């Protein structure tokens, strides 16, 4: 869906992106993460055809951002960090304007507005002015504006910043439903916890380069990550796991982070084998912090 090749972007005093290449598969939610000033926003703006690269290319659905920026804009939905709302307009008018501005046929505008309002849970506030909404509702309205034309790609810049826990949970559910409806989502953030619930892939960017040189798969439905903890330290823990043909991500004498088939019988066998070999298994469970673990395991490797 998104293809980036040897992307270089320069500000007058700094090269912000240096030879970035990556592919984002369709119908995924990809996290764009990295420290402040790493180049996330610049990359997001290049993906959105808002900035013209110095060299290299960005293609969205085989359209080059340099050759066809307006056609790419029509394919995109974009949620900036401040949501971009007209405070004086009602929710209905905000969504109607977004529908008009994305070229929705006049006869289909009303139904598109109603559908978007339903998707983001604002159908009971259609006549409320945007300026009178809470932060969480403003964020929903921002997403409603971004999806009213049912874009193929949705770009979100720090979408959960400042939201309360319930609003974050609602956001996760909404983004997952959008992915399931066929959209490809790229979410830029430097708060890993907020991405954990819905991102399956991750692009780590630092110093204008993609760390590891590619999109990293964070979650695999067939082979999730499991954390194993043993009560007594054993120097042969790693060797045992490797002999048992387990894919080890990280291991020390007490812990191991592995990927393993979701099959219950296979997991039960692994636990049995561990216990039979004398390992005092104190914890065996699916890792709930896959994104963070991947981030830090990749980050130390430096840029490709």
């Amino acid at each position, binding site marked *: 869906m998104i293809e980036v090749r040897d992307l270089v972007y*320069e*500000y*007058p*005093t*700094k*090269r912000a992106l240096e030879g970035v290449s990556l592919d984002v598969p369709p119908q995924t939610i990809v996290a764009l993460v990295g420290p402040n000033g790493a180049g996330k926003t610049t990359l997001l703006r290049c993906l*959105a*055809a*808002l900035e*013209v690269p*110095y*060299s290299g290319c960005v293609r969205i659905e085989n359209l080059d951002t340099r050759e066809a*920026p*307006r056609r790419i*804009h*029509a394919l*995109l939905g*974009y949620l*900036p*960090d*401040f*949501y*971009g*709302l*007209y*405070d*004086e*307009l009602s929710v209905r*008018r905000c969504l109607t*304007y*977004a529908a*008009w*501005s*994305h*070229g929705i046929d006049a006869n289909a505008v009303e139904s598109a507005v109603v559908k978007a309002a339903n998707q983001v849970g604002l159908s009971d506030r259609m006549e409320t002015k945007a300026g009178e909404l809470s932060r969480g509702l403003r964020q929903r309205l921002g997403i409603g*504006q971004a999806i009213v*034309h049912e874009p193929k790609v949705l770009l979100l810049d720090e979408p959960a910043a400042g939201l309360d826990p319930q609003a974050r949970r609602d956001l996760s559910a909404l983004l997952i439903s959008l992915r399931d409806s066929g959209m490809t989502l790229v979410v830029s953030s430097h708060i890993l916890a907020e991405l954990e619930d819905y991102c399956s892939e991750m692009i780590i960017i630092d110093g204008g380069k993609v760390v590891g040189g590619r999109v990293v798969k964070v979650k695999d439905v067939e082979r999730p990550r499991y954390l194993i903890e043993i009560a007594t330290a054993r120097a042969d823990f790693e060797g045992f796991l490797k002999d048992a043909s387990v894919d080890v991500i990280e291991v020390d004498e007490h812990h191991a982070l592995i990927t393993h088939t979701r099959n219950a019988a296979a997991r039960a066998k692994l636990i049995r084998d561990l216990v039979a070999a004398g390992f005092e298994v104190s914890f065996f469970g699916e890792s709930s912090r896959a994104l963070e673990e991947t981030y830090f395991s990749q980050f130390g490797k430096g840029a490709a």
Partner: protein
Amino acid sequence: MGPEFRRNLWLELTTRRIAFMVAILALIFFASAVSGPGWTPYSAAETVYYLVVVIWGARNAGLSIVKEIRDRTWDLQRLSSISAAQMAWGKLFGATIYNWFGGAICLAVMLIYGLAHGAFGKAILDFFHYVIVGVVAQAVAFLASLVALRRRSAHSRLDVFLYQLLGILAAVVAAYVWETADPESAVLLGRKSTEVIPWWGVVISARPFLLLSLAIFAGWILTGCYREMRRELKMENGPLVWLGFLGFIGLYVAGFDAWLPHEALMANWNVVALRLALASTTFAALTYVMVLLEPKDRVLYRWYASQIASADIGRVLRNLQAWIMSYFAAVAVSLVLIWWLFERGFGAFYPAVAIAGLGFITRDVSIFVFFAASRRRSDFAALVTLFALYVLIPAILDGVGLKGMLSFFYPTPSRPIWLGPAVVWVEAIAALGLAVSRVALGEKRAV
């Protein structure tokens, strides 16, 4: 009706605001009708029109994009499917629709008053003039905000005030030009009005000529707004429209050869040389204006170099900046002028001055590029440098009796005649070399 225009209608033309405008204007016109003869509804309508459409309208036009940037909605608009034309006209005429509503009432009063007092013909001409002045004021303010946006300095209140001021200044110029053909205004200002204008050897009635000229210039300003909006939406503009404007302005200004004072040095020149000189001077002036206005983006200049290196000249030409095209137009017409002067046996004096003039332009634009590649407030630094080169150093040289060196810093004849141009071109090549090396050095630093 485009989405942006409709959104502005929602925001600007509310029932309450419409009622307020109608009530206020009705009071003003009633007061002017019942007051003394010095204040008529016509004069009141003129004054209110300037206040509402020119002064306030220029502010709203200048604010239309700045407000989007402040509210962080501009990127969303750029990512929409709204065409450049819909966006440009939707903002320019949408953000000022309330002003035009008030202005339309004023224009209607002027027309009705003119009809009632037997001056309908004048009222009709004034009607078109006022519409053009309003469009020029607002379009210039809007264009200024778009140009500033390219330079990434567009948000503050002072910026908006400057855009408004530029719009008002443009309206004042338009009004001044119009007054040169208005016997009443000219008498008021103590000048002689002119009923005819000689242009390209043809004597034309002043009022229709000036009205048409203003309309055409308003059209070019609107074209500029449209093209800047295209650029904001990341669409390629190509060089043809700017080259077309250069062709128009060159021909337009060259037609005013009869206005040059006859006692000038060039009195013995023939009409072709005079027209070439007018055109090349116009292009040179445009070069300075555009090099000041356009961002001297060293990333773009490095990109030019990389495209030329890969033999993609067409892409460079499609993205050429206006100052570069103006510079080459000035050079081309000046070379034709120099050839013409040699051909017609005018000697070396004028060609030497023209060659020195080209050297000065080359040096000066190189200074702008050099500073742009090295510091933030680059234009200010470049302007201070030019002030030193054109004013301070010549003043010092004059003061210490080294008048022979003035031609190295000021376009004036030298002895021997080719010494001045030679030194100026040495300065130009040095400045160009510094600019190119600074841009190239930036490449190494960036990497």
